[in-house]
């Protein structure tokens, strides 16, 4: 009931915006006209007809400036426009998107990028739409024939839910938004920041980057949805790397993210972050290597966010519960306890800001035109639901607005803003005390604190083992005997998800956001994770595999010329 009211309201609002935005409404109009013309014929084509069409156009402007050692390396400003056409033939019950079980079909995941005209010329736009619709319709027909043939020779799948869920049509048009930044000024700033590293000849590569993106997404479908969503963001990245004497590669990075130029950091903030990275990297290259270890550890908020994204988030993506190729860690566990009862997890792409920071994973509509929704995944340790695209799964027929992709890919369910909350919060100091107490109990001379994690890999497939590996960047050893904390290097966290979650025994109250990009079947998409620091009574680390290279033979020329 509430939902109906919401979309009704939208329509009223949008109709007024439409009339004032004639220029870009032209794109939606061309899309609609060509879609209607196509659907008129394709929905009546015999014997296999289309029952659904969806057009999505991506209008991008990317500005990228990078500098190292005070010099400009990249200075790009590019505009591109891409088109995705999704055609469904058959019926919602069984259509061309149905999984073929004859072996993983990699071909489905090969991106098929279709660049179209960036001006709004209607004739050119409609030709592009027509050509791609024709191509996709024929592909859909071919695939549907194969699927029908397969069903006659294979056993029934364990999940017999349909292939496409119903959805309510949406009308929404964002106001136009442009990148506004003085790039001339920023080019100089970026160069200047990057020259700070020149005083540290032991840093082999370093980079300051500025990226600005403007993305306008247009979507129309034959159910009547019509959407224009705008997104502009700015990001400043700091990166530096070196090599320890034994050849181990060490790198650290940091990024500032904002939806508005006003949200970008001050010069002082950037310089402070550069200093931190230099200090940490210096400590790291001199740090001892940790031997393989099993024992208590703390994952500091951002690191914990990445940890949950990799280990947990990917396993609650809806399509993985249906695919016969997936490990399905959680598929049959709805209503069961999978995490300690003080932990709850939701994914909420509708929040744009947290603690004054902009959220990269924020969006209004997913790539199936479904409004983004807050989804409760775990409540007090109990699994409640999954991230859903419009692919129905047993017990969860409807989408919750998590069908996402990068252009040229097919939609699957993905994370947006993963939000981990806890009812067992303590201060960071208390968390540290808990770590030391636990170490003593386990008779360990030290515990580990993971401050920064670069990302990780997780295998969710049925063929592989259900393990994960995350790559810590900055780790300290905390001694029980009161020795000062010590920076260490050379470890990766490994484990199996279910076992690892059971060991979480306490959390901090220091919620922090991690803004990043996530790559999976449907391409690279913006995501965020919010989490407090977590205390794990047992974590396993193994030695990082390291390159056989040696540090540079000759000293840095920057050191020599001085």
């Amino acid at each position, binding site marked *: 009931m509430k939902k109906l009211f919401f979309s009704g309201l939208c329509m009223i609002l949008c109709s007024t915006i439409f009339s004032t935005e004639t220029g870009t409404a032209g794109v939606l109009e061309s899309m609609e006209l060509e879609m209607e013309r196509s659907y008129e*014929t394709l929905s009546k084509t015999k014997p296999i007809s289309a029952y659904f069409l969806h057009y999505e156009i991506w209008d991008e402007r990317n500005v990228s400036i990078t500098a190292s050692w005070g010099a400009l390396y990249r200075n790009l400003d590019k505009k591109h426009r891409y088109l995705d056409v999704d055609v469904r033939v058959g019926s919602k019950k069984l259509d061309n998107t149905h999984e073929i079980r004859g072996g993983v079909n990699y071909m489905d995941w090969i991106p098929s990028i279709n660049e*179209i005209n960036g001006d709004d010329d209607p004739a*050119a736009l409609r030709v592009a739409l027509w050509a791609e619709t024709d191509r996709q319709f024929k592909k859909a027909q071919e695939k549907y024939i194969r699927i029908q043939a397969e069903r006659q020779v294979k056993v029934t799948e364990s999940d017999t839910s349909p292939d496409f869920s119903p959805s309510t049509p949406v009308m929404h048009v964002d106001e136009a938004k442009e990148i506004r930044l003085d790039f001339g000024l920023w080019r100089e700033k970026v160069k200047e920041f990057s020259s700070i590293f020149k005083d540290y000849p032991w840093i082999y590569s370093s980079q300051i980057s500025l990226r600005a993106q403007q993305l306008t997404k247009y979507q129309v479908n034959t159910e009547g949805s019509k959407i224009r969503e705008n997104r502009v963001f700015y990001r400043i990245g700091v990166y530096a790397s070196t*090599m320890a004497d034994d050849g181990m*590669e060490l790198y650290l990075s940091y990024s500032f993210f904002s939806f508005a130029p006003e949200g970008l950091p001050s010069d002082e903030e950037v310089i402070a972050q550069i200093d931190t990275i230099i200090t940490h990297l210096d400590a790291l290259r001199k740090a001892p290597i940790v031997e393989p270890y099993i024992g208590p550890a703390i994952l500091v908020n951002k690191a914990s966010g990445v940890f949950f994204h990799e280990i947990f988030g990917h396993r609650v993506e809806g399509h993985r519960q249906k695919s016969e190729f997936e490990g399905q860690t959680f598929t049959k566990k709805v209503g069961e306890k999978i995490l300690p009862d003080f932990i709850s997890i939701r994914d909420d792409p509708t929040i744009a800001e947290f603690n004054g920071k902009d959220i990269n994973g924020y969006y209004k509509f997913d790539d199936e035109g479904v409004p983004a929704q807050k989804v409760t995944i775990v409540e007090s340790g109990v699994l409640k639901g999954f991230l859903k695209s419009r692919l129905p799964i047993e017990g969860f027929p409807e989408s919750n607005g998590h069908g996402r992709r990068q252009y040229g890919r097919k939609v699957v369910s993905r994370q947006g803003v993963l939000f981990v909350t806890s009812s067992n919060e303590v201060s960071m100091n208390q968390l540290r005390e808990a770590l030391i107490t636990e170490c003593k109990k386990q008779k360990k001379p030290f515990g580990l604190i993971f401050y920064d994690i670069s990302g990780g890999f997780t295998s969710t497939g049925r063929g592989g083992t259900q393990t994960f590996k995350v790559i810590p960047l900055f780790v300290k050893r905390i001694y029980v005997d009161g020795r000062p904390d010590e920076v260490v290097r050379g470890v990766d966290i490994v484990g199996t998800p279910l076992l690892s979650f059971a060991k979480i025994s306490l959390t901090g109250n220091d919620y922090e956001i991690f803004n990043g990009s996530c790559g999976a079947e449907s391409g690279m998409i913006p995501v965020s994770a919010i989490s407090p620091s977590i205390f794990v009574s047992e974590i396993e680390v193994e030695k990082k595999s390291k390159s056989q*290279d040696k540090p540079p*033979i000759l000293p840095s020329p920057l050191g020599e010329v001085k």
Partner: protein
Amino acid sequence: MRNRIFFVVLFFTFLSIGKLYNNILFMAMDDEIRRSITRLQIENQKKPYYISYRIEEREYIKIKASFGGLLYSNRNRIRDLYVDLRIGDYSFDNSNFVARISHSRIIGSDYTSLPLDDNYDALRNDLWLITDGTYKKALEELSRKKATIQNQQVKDQTSDFSKVTSNTAMEPAVKLAIDEAVWENTIVTLSRIFQKYPDIQESSITFYSRAGNQYFLDTEGSKSQQGALLTYIEVTAKAQSKDGNPIEDILGFYCHAPDELPDIATISRKVEAMAETLTLQIVLEETEDYSGPVLFVGQAAAEFMFQILGKGVSDPRKPLFENETVSGSAGRDMGVLANRIGRRVISSFLHAYDDPTLKKWNGKPLVGYFAVDDQGVPAKKAEIIKDGKLCGVLMSRTPTKKIDISNGHGRFKDERFGSRVCGMVGNLIIEADETKSHSEMKEMLIDICRNYEIPYGIIVTRLEITRPRTLRERYMGYFTSMTSGSEKPILSSPVVAYKIDVETKTVELIRGLTFSSVTPRVLRDIVASGNEDFVYNFVFWDEEGNAYPMSVITPSILVEEMDIETSGKKARKLPILNHPYFKN
């Protein structure tokens, strides 16, 4: 006021003179190369005996339009550094060997991007790290090469690097001077031509113009700087025959500076002609199999000569592969004629040479022009064919069994497992002792047909241009592993061809043919050549996606006998809906 203008002009001239030669780049290269050649050494290992740095600087603009809409208009500037570092000696070093060698993520090898600014410190830092990484890689290459030679019992003792006398050649830098707005407008307007041709399903027009400057320095004392412009307009159009076969054509106009392009009216006329020919082909039936004489005219003759003779005398020495997994496609389609020195490879009335130093030919620009090759060797005229006999091949500094001197044709080739510099076409020129007019050539074609008792002869005016695989095709290649490496035919299929009736002499457009079982032997079946030179400029894209501007100058040629079969291209269903612009 007048004074001020004068001052500005003076200042500007001064500035542009100052920019002609890039001293910071050379200073940074010189300082790092000196330090590296004397001090770069791991204990108990060899020092490098040769190092070269090549900086390639490119500023370009690319505009693409389709059916009256602008796809994109992008401008970019890049500066890349390529390092050639050799350990061992001229007779045996780490080169000419392909293996899968992993490298550090922080210290790369072989090539890297450089700052766009002339910043000495940044340049030095990049030069330092890449030289270090390349040295370490070269050490590993050398030891693995020795092991491979032992394992595979390789007997070949051809040396690895030929000696050259050092040289200095400094050309002023070139700059990109393009009015983007004007060209965007022109290209969009040109793309609208296709709004007159309902049967053409997809079309696009691309404008590209770049200013490229190359800076070279090595430890033998060679130093050079050269600049080159490249500008082109490329037109692609796709249609389907009424029975579903794909028909497509690419039309290109290539030159140095944008003002050398034909005027827009001429380009429009040629685009229209292309669109009309495609439209006519749609209703044609595929031709039947044919065995008989074929007359190659214009672009078709030039592509024929490039694909069989040009590629045949390129890349004359193949590297040693550590194992089969790295052998890939490394220039397999090149160098097939290279070991036939002194033997007859083409009809005896034909001669050929390759001379990259020619900038123009009868007033027409030659895009294959370069003064110094990618190894810093001055380009030279290379004699290839004398009286039908092979007398030379296109050489880089990689010696072959018979030749150990470079003729300045070395071009950098990036491959899946490493990179090489190999001899390649610059400006390939084919000359004939005996020539005939176009009508005499046609008469001769008919005469041969009569002798063979064939009802018609075939005239080909356009051949398909080789294009690198698309991103999608590459991905598919990875998944389908090596199956995509099936041998490509050495001669591409005709795009535009006609048959000429022996009795009535009427000429009629035909469609859908492909040459079967062509071998380099076909060069010896050339029985006549025309009396008009065709100047063909193009960009050759190899399988790995490397692009080389080239020129071929050739008369039309008549081949006595070729086998032609129907193209066998996979038919697709025709579009279900009418084209939205031409509905009705």
